[in-house]
């Protein structure tokens, strides 16, 4: 006697909400204020775009021809400066004939980064891969074996140096950050205090004073006669600096692991280190992947400061390329745009990626 349930078949919505006209109505001309704003901005663009177009494309000089550039000044950009100088900008003072080596080395590291970004490759062998990549990187850059002529570190420069500084510092800072973060949550007050002091002190000062210390005062702190390559000292400075920030990030992740996880681990009889390693860290770290990405982005940008302590990474190499060349120096702005583009593409790609990871994490949480 009881009725059968008869579902009404779902129909598609009568109000199609897509289509460019509908979109524009909702997003550009919703009411008079919106319409006015749209028109105002459109006018601005109409006013500005042709000039920009002329400067960037139409009136620009693309050939490495200084006289043509000089003639086009004020009308069009001189991209010729990039065509002329890109090798010094990208590789600094690295011996000209050997520049394929930094190129290959950099591509290797970038490849490694791309691979590491893919979830499917988050396996144990990734660490081995990185060790291999870095070993190759240094072999290629430094030479001295396999018939490669030796190139000393002070000749390393440009983009490879930028990449190397950021990647190495990140790798070194990471374990330190984990230890400090765990230390900040330890029950032992002495250890906690040390960690807190470290983090707060480092975060309180600007990076350039840390770099200055690392590059010029370091020898005062060690016994006489001991010398350490300036590159190594700068990396140490960057590492100590970034680790303090990363430690806070990791601590955030640790705090976000619910108490219930610890209790469950306890009730299963796991010890402190087992709990940290098997339960807490995997969850905390995967939660903070996006923030670590962001730390990496700022590290990548911050490496530009090492030019202040006379290392010729990308920004420094640009100064090297142009400052002493009267012919091309007037076109610094164009050269700046060139490396801006490099930094921007790197950072933008990474920040997009970190957003994507964040979404993935949120999705996996919500099932």
């Amino acid at each position, binding site marked *: 006697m*009881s*009725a*059968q*349930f008869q*579902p*009404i078949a*779902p*129909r*598609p*919505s*009568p*109000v*199609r*909400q*897509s289509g460019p006209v509908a979109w524009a109505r909702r997003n550009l001309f919703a009411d008079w204020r919106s319409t006015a704003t749209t028109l105002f901005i459109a006018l601005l663009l109409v006013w500005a775009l042709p000039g920009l177009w002329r400067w960037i494309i139409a009136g620009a000089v693309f050939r490495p021809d200084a006289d043509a550039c000089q003639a086009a000044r004020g009308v069009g950009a001189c991209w010729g400066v990039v065509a002329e100088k890109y090798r010094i900008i990208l590789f600094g003072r690295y011996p000209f004939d050997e520049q394929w080596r930094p190129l290959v080395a950099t591509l290797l590291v970038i490849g490694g980064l791309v691979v590491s970004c893919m979830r499917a490759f988050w396996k144990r062998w990734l660490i081995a891969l990185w060790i291999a990549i870095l070993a190759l990187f240094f072999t290629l850059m430094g030479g001295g074996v396999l018939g490669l002529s030796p190139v000393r570190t002070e000749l390393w420069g440009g983009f490879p140096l930028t990449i190397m500084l950021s990647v190495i510092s990140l790798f070194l800072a990471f374990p330190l950050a984990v230890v400090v973060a765990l230390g900040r949550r330890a029950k032992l007050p002495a250890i906690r205090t040390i960690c807190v002091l470290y983090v707060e002190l480092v975060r309180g000062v600007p990076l350039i004073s840390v770099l200055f210390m690392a590059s010029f005062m370091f020898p005062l702190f060690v016994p006489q006669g001991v010398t350490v390559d300036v590159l190594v000292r700068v990396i140490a400075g960057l590492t100590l600096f970034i680790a303090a920030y990363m430690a806070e990030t990791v601590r955030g992740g640790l705090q976000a692991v619910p108490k219930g996880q610890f209790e469950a681990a306890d009730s299963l009889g796991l010890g402190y280190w087992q709990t940290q390693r098997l339960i807490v860290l995997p969850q905390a770290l995967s939660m903070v992947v996006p923030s670590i990405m962001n730390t990496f982005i700022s590290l990548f940008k911050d490496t530009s400061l090492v030019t202040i302590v006379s290392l010729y990474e990308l920004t420094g190499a640009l100064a090297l390329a142009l400052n002493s060349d009267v012919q091309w120096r007037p076109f610094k702005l164009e050269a700046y745009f060139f490396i801006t583009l490099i930094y921007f593409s790197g950072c933008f790609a990474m920040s997009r990626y970190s957003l994507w990871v964040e979404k993935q994490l949120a999705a996996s949480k919500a099932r």
Partner: protein
Amino acid sequence: MSDPIIRFDKVNKWYGNDFHVLRDIDLSVAKGERIVICGPSGSGKSTLIRCINRLEEHQQGTLTVDGVELTDNIKAIDQVRKNVGMVFQQFNLFPHLTVLENLTLSPMWVGKMPKKEAEERAMQQLKRVRIAEQAQKYPLQLSGGQQQRVAIARALCLTPKIMLFDEPTSALDPEMIKEVLDVMIELANQGITMLCVTHEMGFAKAVADRVIFMDQGQIVEQNTPEAFFNNPQNERSKDFLSKILGH
């Protein structure tokens, strides 16, 4: 049946373009009627009652509340919202305001009522839900049951003709459920029109004039509580009831 205060007429709603969440809903609610809505999770219960004060908008059919048809017209929506009180599962009290401020907010800013008068009315409603002594505390300093009672009082401060409840007890501890249900039963007895999404069968039996069972965006069955619980007409309702009453 007197003139209905709420009328759904072939109301359809979609989320996005494809997700058909309310399907051909026809429903009339008379003044003073007390309705309990139940059904499996995701069946569209919340969506249904949120359409009534236009927290969600429907795309097809007509929905008339207290003589006002709900369209894009902002005036009409404001008009309706003044007459409809709503209580949420998660209470949604404003944590940065005291209990009293939570209650006077709308009367003062929307109803343009002087502060003193608004506070008097608020205290009345707080007494009605029996927590007048908590007026100066902040919401998060109260227990769940108390918070939900504040939420009810806040809705009552609008002097609404209709009260909507969306699973008001499901975020509460067993003991607190009773506090809240008691307050709701009192309200029901005062003759206010009431739509309540809940699985508290005891409550349904005690106060509902009608139980509505929904599944997959449709109203599958509606009946008096006795008839519905003792003798569900539809396969789907039977199945559902066997599960939630089974233990």
